[in-house]
């Protein structure tokens, strides 16, 4: 079943006053012989003992404060285990802000910060961290608006970890020798990416959905690695790693007062720069629908991705798209039941969307054996169309909403996950009671609203199709869905006239 991995929750949570209440709208799925959802290969006998109640979970609230240098402090205290995690979120330091000819600058700046400070070499930092079994990373996503400095350790080592974090954040050395090492490793990474079908699919889809907007950035290029200079790294750090609009969040064995004291002691050198809040803009609207093929020699599968733009995180449609997307491509959703369980085309299929400060993306994807590329793509698109054309039946709809609300109980085991909810509130300007009222908002979504979201976001004219695989076998199939733009696995366009010859 599903990806064969066990979720290893990192921390325990012991808060959460909860009470058993009758569910607002949902009934236990199998009770009363509710009709099975849309596809075959699922039979609900209704004999298993299901408690009709949904645990109503009250999430613990963090304590928050604003510091003089502009930093917002969030602390989710949980004393169950002797460990603490932290993350510093720095808007303006993400890859979104890379100059277009230096894509990767933010990411490499973050990586190089960890490669030595003015008083510690890279190996000294590694040794100090690992003898404590602590972690410390600087992450700046290729398309993200923010960078983060994050880490965790046992309580007994947390003060030392904060020393290292402050040093990496405030005094990175950006030594030329370390930069050359990092650049060499990064070049090798670019080569490796080209052999990965999922990377190739994501790269092509991002370009189709976002065009040249930074939201579509997925990787540096050989040319951008050449263009980035040590000076550019130093300047990016100096101008962008500022506290003015940043936040620091803690979860675990620490109080607000203890966190403040640590910040005073370790981060007093992080002073306000007096810069405005970094602004982002939305990508140009997506469309028209197009079809892309990445020719990957040796493929025995076709990796299919269908995608488009989604919405802002604060969009009022967020709950409706969450619910209808779960009906479509969530665990045991329609795509799974139809493409995997009914037809046996694939091991794994699902759909996902992101929503941030700028308009994000939505993707449905799967990998299928080459021979079934055509029916798999047709069926995937038909399931999307089904949600546009027909309201979700009541029983299936109630089950999906119950699944979303019910899973909050599991989050209580993991303070880090809970902290993530509150960081999200801060990042996207959501109200402080957002997660308390979220279950009610999910329960309030109607089948008509879900259908309207499907019609709006998954309109046929918006959907971009990408296939990565054996061009000899799938080019003609894709042509049935529209004009096909073909590229090779290095990203170079392939002229159409020659695409049908010279196959292995």
């Amino acid at each position: 079943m599903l990806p064969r991995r066990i979720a290893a929750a990192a921390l325990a949570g012991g808060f959460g006053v909860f009470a058993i209440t009758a569910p607002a709208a949902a009934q236990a799925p199998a009770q009363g012989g509710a009709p099975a959802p849309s596809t075959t290969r699922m039979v609900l006998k209704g004999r298993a003992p299901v408690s009709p109640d949904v645990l109503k979970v009250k999430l613990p609230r963090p304590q928050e404060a604003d510091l003089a240098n502009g930093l917002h402090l969030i602390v989710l205290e949980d004393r169950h285990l002797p460990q603490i995690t932290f993350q510093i979120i720095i808007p303006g330091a993400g890859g979104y802000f890379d100059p277009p000819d230096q894509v990767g600058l933010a990411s490499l700046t973050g990586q190089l910060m960890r490669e030595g400070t003015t008083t510690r070499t890279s190996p000294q930092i590694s040794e100090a961290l690992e003898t404590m079994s602590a972690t410390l990373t600087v992450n700046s996503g290729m398309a993200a608006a923010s960078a983060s400095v994050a880490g965790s350790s046992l309580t007994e080592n947390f003060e030392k970890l904060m020393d290292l974090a402050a040093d990496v954040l405030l005094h990175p050395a950006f030594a030329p020798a370390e930069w050359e090492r990092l650049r060499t490793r990064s070049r090798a990474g670019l080569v490796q990416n080209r052999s990965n079908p999922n990377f190739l699919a994501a790269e092509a889809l991002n370009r189709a959905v976002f065009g040249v907007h930074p939201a579509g950035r997925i990787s540096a290029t050989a040319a951008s690695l050449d263009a980035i200079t040590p000076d550019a790294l130093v300047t990016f750090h100096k101008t962008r790693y500022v506290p003015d609009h940043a936040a620091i969040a803690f979860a675990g064995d620490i109080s607000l007062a203890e966190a403040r004291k640590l910040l005073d002691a370790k981060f007093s050198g992080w002073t306000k720069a007096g810069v405005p809040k970094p602004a982002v803009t939305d990508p140009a609207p997506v469309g028209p629908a197009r079809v892309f093929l990445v020719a990957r020699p040796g493929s025995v599968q076709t990796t299919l991705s269908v995608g488009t733009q989604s919405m802002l995180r604060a969009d009022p449609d967020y709950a409706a798209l969450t619910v209808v997307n779960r009906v479509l491509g969530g665990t045991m959703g329609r795509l799974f039941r139809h493409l995997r369980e009914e037809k046996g085309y694939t091991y794994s299929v699902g759909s996902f969307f992101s929503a941030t400060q700028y308009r994000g993306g939505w993707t449905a994807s799967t990998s299928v054996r080459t021979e079934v590329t055509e029916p798999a793509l047709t069926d995937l698109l038909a399931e999307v169309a089904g949600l546009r054309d027909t309201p979700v039946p009541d029983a299936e709809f109630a089950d999906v909403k119950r699944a979303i609300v019910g899973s909050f109980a599991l989050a209580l085991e993991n303070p880090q996950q809970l902290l993530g909810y509150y960081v999200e509130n801060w990042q996207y300007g959501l109200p402080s009671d957002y997660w308390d009222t979220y279950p009610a908002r999910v329960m309030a979504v109607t089948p008509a609203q879900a259908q309207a979201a499907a019609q709006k976001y998954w309109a046929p004219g918006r959907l971009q199709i990408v296939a990565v695989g054996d061009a000899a076998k799938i080019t003609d199939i894709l042509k049935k869905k529209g004009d096909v733009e073909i590229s090779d696995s290095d990203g170079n366009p392939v002229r159409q006239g020659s695409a049908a010859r010279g196959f292995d």
Partner: protein
Amino acid sequence: MTTPLRRLIPLGLVLVAGVAAAPPASVHFTDSKLRNGLRVIISEDHAAPVYSIVVQYNVGSRDERKGRTGFAHLFEHMMFKGSENVGQNEHPYLIFMNGGSMNGTTNKDRTMYYETLPANQLDLGLFLESDRMKSLAITAENLDNQRNAVQEERRGGVDNQPYGRTFEALDEIAYDNFAYQHSVIGSMADLSAASVDDVAAFFRTYYAPNNAVIGIVGDVDTKTTLSKLEKFFGAVPRQPSPAAVDTTEGAQTEERRRTIDDRLARLPRLDMAYRIPPSASPDTDAIEVLATVLSGGRSSRFYESIVRQKQLSTGVSAFAEESRGPGLFKIIGTALPGKTLGDLEAAVDAEIERLKAEPVAGWEIEKARTSARRAFVSALGSSLSKAVQLSQDALYYDQPGRINTEEERMARVTAADVQRVARQYLVKTGRTVLQTMPKPSAPNGGQ
């Protein structure tokens, strides 16, 4: 008997003063057996309104016979296809629709199923696990359907991936005994050959209560849970014990060396496998420290010397997977563009020889110890992690409480122990060296 964890862990350590480590907590549990031989480990943890149930069956790919490779894992997929009182796919549907999560996983040594659910759904988890242990629905239609899914899993995970064939080939060369020699996912031909009769016989033989261990951890009451277990599982009949599988390996007397081509890879890769004893061996802890010294994080010797200084590779890992039978200590690294596998292998060998010649430093030993402590504390926070470890250690070692001794065992390993196991096991005559060379297919996209 069962104290909630929150009382065992000292709270509110004085942070800024940097006070010494908290004394180690331990996981309390009960260990009992139903009359039909089903072993049950229960541990209460009321930190969150959640529980996890893990069912470990004492069967893995090592129990497969020739011509039926991949069968244990294919069978795992059949376990979601329904039973007497549970419809096809109703099991996962009920778990997810009630806010839970679940999965199954197969390795060489065991097959494991697990669910995490809100605490008010205890009966649901027990019922679903017991009904399939009792009365799995075995049909040709289900088998064909899941055969497709598994073959697609193989394509996605092996045949369509760079280096996909490499991990299979390494075990095939390093082992002589069929039990551990073949891969868990199995061959396409063998998967195609599996029949409904095979499924029925496998179920009868291995999916018996006396061949399984259940772990339940979380917001449950031990006494109530035990009586529910009796109610749901008590009537599942005991079966004759399956024959023990022969996993013995003859001695390896010379190095084995092979090169394979990979049409999907872009960079050459080096894989090495040294023979080591089963994980129950007293040397296992020292071997674990050895792996940490060589490749645990960026302060490791491989990273500092081979990745950072010599710049031969983006990363070289060394690890020994847990194994009930004869084990392998594996070293894997990809060469950077322009570097050769010969250079990479020489650099790896130099670090291994250094380990044999000089004792490791105190901080390297300390690193392994704190790593074990951190892993223990992290596991305490997850009902699923604890349920997996308690039940698996009961099955593998007959020591469900092994989780509580991990840190102490690692703390006993000395620099001399690490040097001794390096000299004893990291010998060229006991190893396999596999080189994977990129060999692009002719382009299929035209020019």
